[in-house]
């Protein structure tokens, strides 16, 4: 009789934790509400800072999943806490008696149309970072909004650091994404002029600053320190963008053929629903609260419920994978304490010794 672990969410965090726990001998059940595993990673093209393939990375995460019971198109219908476990009824009718639950529900992308003054969904040539990744994957004729642009702009902080959009915090990954995509657009359209409109350039991670340098030296990307105030459409469909060059202290207007909005990371709506069922403590901005930001970042406020990945806040992929592995250790420790007599692979190995 092994311990059951339910993992909610089949994105990178869920996948990495699932394979790790499976190798330790637990009985792992993973549910994913969409029809595909991989979360947002499945729709991306190349990852920053070094341009490795997203598909390749996802393959790596999926390679170790033997033995994990995966259910796609499946959500949680109800959860009840019993004495030491959770009785979970899934939307496919199956009931799981979970001794530990890992919430890896990830994030939703900010709905860029809510930032009305940028005209997403209204003007013909405004797209988001996600749209651009999809375009890189699907090919040059796959999106009519991207039509041999000669002047391309990237808008940082769309739906992030913005009280008016209901999100004060930074989404962490958008600056690196914007710089990456700016370089990639220059590769696709070598004659184009590319601008990045930013407030602060948060290139905090390993090799990110090199990416920034490359964008300037190799691709002549122009970085303008000023938040885009308004986007309008000219009679020929090109976009008129207003910002201030705060370094020069002068307002400016730029005409562009394509504008890419860096939509930020918001707590997953589906995740929030699960959180409500569990009555999980949440922060004011809707991401899940952890027991201690430094020493217990994978523990939620509830016994037996663990967290990993963007469910607790904007995160990079390396951080997500690391958190998933940390969650594996935390869950293993927890189950060993609470269920000392249950024989998982590890305890069997220990006994043999």
């Amino acid at each position, binding site marked *: 009789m092994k311990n059951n672990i339910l993992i909610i969410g089949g994105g990178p965090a869920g996948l990495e934790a699932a394979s790790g726990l499976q190798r330790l001998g637990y009985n792992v059940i993973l549910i994913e509400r969409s029809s595909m595993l991989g979360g947002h990673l499945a729709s991306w093209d190349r990852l920053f800072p070094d341009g490795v393939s997203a598909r390749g990375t996802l393959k790596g995460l999926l390679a170790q999943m033997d033995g994990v019971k995966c259910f796609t198109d499946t959500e949680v219908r109800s959860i009840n806490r019993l004495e030491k476990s959770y009785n979970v009824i899934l939307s496919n009718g199956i009931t799981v008696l979970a001794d530990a639950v890992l919430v890896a529900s990830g994030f939703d992308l900010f709905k860029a*149309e809510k930032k*009305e*003054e940028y*005209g*997403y*969904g*209204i*003007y*013909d040539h405004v797209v988001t970072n996600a749209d651009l990744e999809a375009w890189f994957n699907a090919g040059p004729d796959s999106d009519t909004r991207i039509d041999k642009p000669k002047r391309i702009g990237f808008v940082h902080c769309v739906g992030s650091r913005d009280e008016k959009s209901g999100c004060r915090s930074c989404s962490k990954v958008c600056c690196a994404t914007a710089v990456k995509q700016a370089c990639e657009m220059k590769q696709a359209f070598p004659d184009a002029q590319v601008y990045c409109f930013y407030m602060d350039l948060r290139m905090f991670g390993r090799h990110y600053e090199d990416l920034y340098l490359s964008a300037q030296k190799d691709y002549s990307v122009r970085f303008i320190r000023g938040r885009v105030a*308004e986007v*309008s*459409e*000219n*009679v020929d469909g090109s976009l*008129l963008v207003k910002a201030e060059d705060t370094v020069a202290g002068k307002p400016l207007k730029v005409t562009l053929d394509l504008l890419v909005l860096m939509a930020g990371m918001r707590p997953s709506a589906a995740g929030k629903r699960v959180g409500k069922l569990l009555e999980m403590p949440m922060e004011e901005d809707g991401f899940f609260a952890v027991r201690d930001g430094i020493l217990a970042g994978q523990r939620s406020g509830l016994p037996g419920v663990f967290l990993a990945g963007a469910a607790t806040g904007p995160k990079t992929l390396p951080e997500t994978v690391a958190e998933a592995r940390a969650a594996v250790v935390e869950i293993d420790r927890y189950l060993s304490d609470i269920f000392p007599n249950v024989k998982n692979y590890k305890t069997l190995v220990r006994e043999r010794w």
Partner: protein
Amino acid sequence: MIYEGKQKIWSDYQKDIPDDHYFYVRSCIRQSFFPASEAAFLKITRQELGKDIFETEHHTTCGGIAYHSDTIPQETAMTIIARQFALMAKYGYENYVCSCITSFGLYCETMETWREFPELEAKVRENLWKTCKLEFAKPKVLVHASDLIYKYRNLIAAQAKHKLVNVHTGRPLRAVEHIGCHYSKMFPSKGVGGAEYPYVLVGMIEAWGGEIIDYPERRHCCGFGFRQYLVKGNRGYSLSNTHKKFESMEPYQPDLIITNCPGCPYFLDRWQYVIAESTGKTYGENGHGIPVLTYEEVAGLVLGYDPWDLGLQTHQVGPEPLLDKMGIEYDPARKFLGKDGKDIGRPESCMYLK
């Protein structure tokens, strides 16, 4: 341009607009330059829509222009406003309708400030009692007069004698809508459609058969700027802002401009005259300007009122090109006559502007 994207936003910004029993306060600039517009508004509301809209002779300015020219302290403006509210309560009304956009913005700002700082409201209450022996009640609903016409735009459309359609070509007239800054820029949720894609005038145009133009500087201020116009040395600011809008809308060839703020139509009208006379450039066809109308004037034309009853003769940019397009009959000989056909002369012609 993807129209459905705008529709989604419009549905997010609905506003509570009362059905009847309105307390009406006038606008200093509307009264000075567009008195017939206010008369038309009252006539439409009372006779066409059958509503109870009440005006007392005892109401005054809200002080908005003085407030935004920084000539009176905030507390003075708030106490004048409190007095207006007291009059509303005195005459038994709770739905407040104001004719001026700056007023509307100031009323909203005042009530929001009172909500956040109740001690200020208490002070103003004390001031009002001390100076006027009046007590005030805040309105249950406070809207701008254009919100009312917006609310009843379909009723007006049902009674329309003319549509916003070019009768010679059968195509809808192309309309530029200009919203006064103080309508929704400070409090987007208090404007129909919000601040980015306001719907209050778009709704009227669509209901009456016209086509709306979106152009890059649509949201740009007309440039009144209060002190930036009122003081002669600053007037270049005002002119240059309006000029920017005209340069931006020119490629779209609008047939008319519709506005809901009292000051904006004055500026959009008269600066066309100044641009024409000083540079020779006009923005309409064949040396004409683009007719600039208040929403009351547009509603009146749609309902078949006589253009000269509506006060269109006091516009510097002649409305005739628009009237001709709409197939409205008018008597050019009667344009500048006074009441009962009194001959009161006519304005001099312009050098460039027809």
